């Protein structure tokens, strides 16, 4: 019993457990290669991937930085564009009916289908990748923000009205803050999609970035390099995700317990 509670409550366990999981997965990977004697051009050993990274750490980190920038810029733009649109949708039923089906339709398009078009329109630079990230992040951010804005309990709205609060006060002191936990839920979904979006963008045509590293390593059958790039992508995803979780903890301590 004491063991179990230590594993679920202690802080060091909260850090140690994920690391343990990771180490176990890598060990399993390595064991599989040894046990089934898988050829290294099909599946490299963890050691070979690490060696690949250490061979050219500067280059790989540079490519990571490129993908990271695309992801962050697109994600930021999606927030800047998505939150106001969500607010407008919540304010007006007419606008909601006008815009919502459109949003759904755009979201239903497989983003991979658009990627080559973006290249045609904007070339091989950073812009089409940022736009791709924007496209994939936009919808979850709009939906969760709109949902959050609508979730204000009627009794709190009535309380503010009984205190003779103005519309602006009602918005800033109540509705906006009340929506934040749900906005964060949307952001956490969006940030993982954002990384995928940047890779899709790079697949369609790029000269740099981790997605580009993966496609070009395919041409030379350098599987270990592709794996190194994939590992960097997932590390980036994890850091971005937990960055948001940390931010949420700092900004919304009140939201933790009420879940």
């Amino acid at each position, binding site marked *: 019993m004491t063991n179990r509670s230590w594993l679920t409550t202690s802080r060091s366990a909260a850090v140690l457990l994920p690391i343990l999981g990771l180490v176990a997965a890598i060990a399993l990977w390595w064991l599989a290669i040894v046990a089934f004697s898988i050829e290294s051009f099909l599946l490299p050993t963890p050691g070979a991937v690490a060696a690949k990274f250490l061979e050219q750490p500067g280059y790989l980190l540079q490519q990571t930085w490129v993908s990271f920038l695309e992801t962050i810029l697109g994600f930021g733009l999606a927030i800047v564009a998505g939150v106001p649109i969500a607010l407008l949708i919540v304010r007006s039923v007419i606008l909601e009916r006008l815009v919502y089906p459109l949003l759904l339709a755009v979201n239903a398009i497989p983003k991979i289908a658009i990627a080559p078009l973006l290249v045609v329109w904007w070339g091989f630079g950073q812009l089409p990748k940022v736009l791709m990230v924007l496209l994939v992040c936009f919808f979850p951010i709009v939906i969760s923000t709109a949902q959050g804005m609508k979730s204000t309990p009627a009794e709190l709205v*009535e*309380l503010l009205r*009984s205190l003779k609060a103005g519309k602006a006060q009602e918005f800033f002191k109540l509705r906006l803050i009340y929506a934040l936990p749900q906005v964060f839920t949307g952001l956490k979904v969006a940030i993982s999609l954002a990384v995928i979006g940047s890779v899709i963008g790079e697949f369609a045509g790029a000269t740099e970035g981790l997605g580009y590293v993966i496609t070009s390593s395919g041409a030379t059958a350098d599987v270990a390099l592709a794996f190194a790039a994939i590992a960097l992508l997932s590390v980036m995803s994890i850091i971005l995700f937990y960055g948001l979780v940390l931010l949420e903890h700092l900004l919304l301590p009140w*939201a933790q317990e009420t879940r």
Partner: protein
Amino acid sequence: MIKLDGVGQVFEGRAGRVQALDGIDLHVQENEFVTLIGRSGCGKSTLLRLIAGLLPPTYGGVAVAGEPVTAPRRDVSFMFQRPALLPWRSVLSNVMLPVEISGGDLDRKKYVERAHELLELVGLDGFERRLPHELSGGMQQRVSLCRSLIRRPKVMLMDEPFSALDALTRTELSEELQRIQMELATTIVFVTHSIEEAVVLADRVVVLTPRPGRLREVVEIDIPRPRSLGQNAHLTEVAQISAHLHALLAEKQAEIRPVDAR
């Protein structure tokens, strides 16, 4: 202080018209304590919301302090059935909310002091910096009471404020409320489900009939104050009046409800 003239309220809902209130004539004097009882759904909350200016009456006139009510007023406070605290604000900051919303003309420092006094009064000193989710339901309701008192309202509208409290806290708070009312010369309209509470607190008890809510009877309570839910609840006078009120409420139940009974 509060004047209701022929007030009626009709709700047009999806399921059709609901006549919530009809023909309510009631004058509440300054510094009077009126309690409102009636069966669930008879329009008690609606009546309070009309007085608060949260809802315009379908017909009839509502006036507070001689002025027709068209919007919420700063000198009228509303205390809800549930605590309605903002979850991200500390206890102190929740109590200060009305002051903050009124804006710059108020002397903030003076009100912070008052907030501390009020919190001490209801036994919450030391909890000023806690968040609402760290408090019990009864403690939250006491914070809500402090919040409704912070601006020294002339009129307090209270919708079953103590229904979630244990008997002892309820007794203490209702004594405190009477004391505050005398000190501040507040006018109070207080909705409750407890007949005894209605009798012990009130100068007059107003009984509403269900659907539509009409005045059934207004009963004057002539027991000297201060009164306590603890010691006075078992006085013969209280018992007699309670029995009478109970009969009034039950009578309506028999007359109107059988249609619904399965």
